[in-house]
């Protein structure tokens, strides 16, 4: 089984983002960037499938500026075999990314594509589902377990209220939820080895894809700030306030 894992470069999980003074977006200059955490889970799952002998090759793909090479290198250090960078400066919406990935998939013919369920920058939660639609493939979103079974894959999904299990035909799309696995840290020898693994660079035009955004960002603002309230001294005081001041119980 050949696996493809898209990875996104995003503002690091630990950075407190700031809205730009001109309200055009958030400050991303001189901010630590990392691989989207859900994509790390996707890479980890692919590497585990390969270690179990269920997969033969893992291709890590990223779309964005040249610097996305760093996130591809991280995926290679975790265990992916080679990388593809689709170089583009400017906004790439999930629909555009799905179209780019579809074009790469037409060339690479993977059996399974594993993506993060959502990127922690735009919080769209869309690329996997959109890619599945464009390819006409089944989707197993919010996966907490992925097992090759009966010529297809069995996916356990995190849904409202519990879990559900689906059997998908291959090729298929899986998007990862938090509990699927705990991604490994790349070891130093593997980081060194990853430097020698190949990364192919393409442009959207090479793939014949129009990536023009469909959404125009009119403004980006900070949400209204919540004021810190008061400390209460005792449980009695707390209950009294909730009953008589806030009137919520």
């Amino acid at each position: 089984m050949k696996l493809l894992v898209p990875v996104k470069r995003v503002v690091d999980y630990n950075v407190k983002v700031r809205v730009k003074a001109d309200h055009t977006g958030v400050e991303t200059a001189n901010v630590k960037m990392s691989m989207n955490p859900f994509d790390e889970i996707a890479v980890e799952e692919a590497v585990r499938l390969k270690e179990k002998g269920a997969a033969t090759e893992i291709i890590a793909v990223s779309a964005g500026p040249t610097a996305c090479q760093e996130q591809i290198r991280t995926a290679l250090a975790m265990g992916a075999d080679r990388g593809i960078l689709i170089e583009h400066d400017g906004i790439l919406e999930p629909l555009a990314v799905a179209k780019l990935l579809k074009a790469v998939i037409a060339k690479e013919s993977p059996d399974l594509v594993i993506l993060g369920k959502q990127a922690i920058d735009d919080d769209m939660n869309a690329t996997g589902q959109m890619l599945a639609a464009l390819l006409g493939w089944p989707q197993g979103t919010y996966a907490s377990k992925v097992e090759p079974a009966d010529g297809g894959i069995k996916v356990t999904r995190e849904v409202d209220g519990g879990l559900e299990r689906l059997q998908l035909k291959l090729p298929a799309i899986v998007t990862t939820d938090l509990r699927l696995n705990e991604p490994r840290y790349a070891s130093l020898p593997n980081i060194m080895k990853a430097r020698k693994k190949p990364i192919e660079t393409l442009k959207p035009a090479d793939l014949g894809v129009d990536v023009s955004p469909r959404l125009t960002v009119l403004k980006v603002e900070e949400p209204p700030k919540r004021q810190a309230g008061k400390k209460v001294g005792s449980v009695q005081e707390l209950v009294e306030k909730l009953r008589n001041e806030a009137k919520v119980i």
Partner: protein
Amino acid sequence: MAVLVLADHDGSAVTQPTRSAVAAASKLGDVTVLVLGPRTAADSAAKVAGVAKVLHTEDVLYANGLAEPLAALLVAMAPEYSHLLAPASAAGKNVMPRLAALLDVQVISDIADVVDADTFVRPIYAGNALATVKSADPKKVITVRAASFDPAAAEGGSAAVEAAPKGEDPGLSNFLGAEIAKSERPELTAAKVVVSGGRAMGSAENFHIIESVADKLGAAVGASRAAVDAGYAPNDHQVGQTGKIVAPDLYIAVGISGAIQHLAGMKDSKVIVAINKDEEAPIFSVADYGLVGDLFKVMPEFESELAKK
């Protein structure tokens, strides 16, 4: 023009987040609600204030919410509607992006406000920023953040219920089964009161402390990502950027430090109470009432105080 809302239901009635999606849809046009399931759920949709029409089918093809046939059905229905909306539930978030791609439009996820027919406000970066976006697509496919819209009233409407069209079955996936927790407590995203526990709970067993206070208050039980990661609480209890977004009248955070990720899921609550032994915990900066103390002492005392009228 007409607007379609894909309903979630609990087997007998449409959910409160669905009624929030109806509220958002009402700002855009005449609302038709699509109910896939029992007739009682369709009848409940017909009573929701502001609903003009209900389309209903009990076709088993849609019984388990598989995205592939459902998206195919919605594509077939799409020509009649300018906007297609669903609550941003696990089901809505699963199918609406698939629908959008089939229509060659960019999905607009998790909207928190409707500015006009083309323009919407949505949170980005875990709600640390609000983006106002204008869509150039001919049709809009949208999921709605339920916590940001007061739900349309459950009673007051009298819409006609008609048969939904029949869609194709792409035959790509099969439903094997589900383990859905049965709970007498209210649903997390619809509860008026939520009591959540964090990593400081220390174990899954200790979560009964949270549950028993929740039951005193008629509240839902939530958890921080740290508590879920540690295995103290199931994932569907998770409140935060990657879990559920809640905005109850009262949110009680117990032993939760207040990571940005968690605040993203609850900071729109009307009243926030924080109980934490670390007085420097960031949760106190958003709490209306803070109590510094050991939760294992405070919570039993809280419970017995609640019992006194």
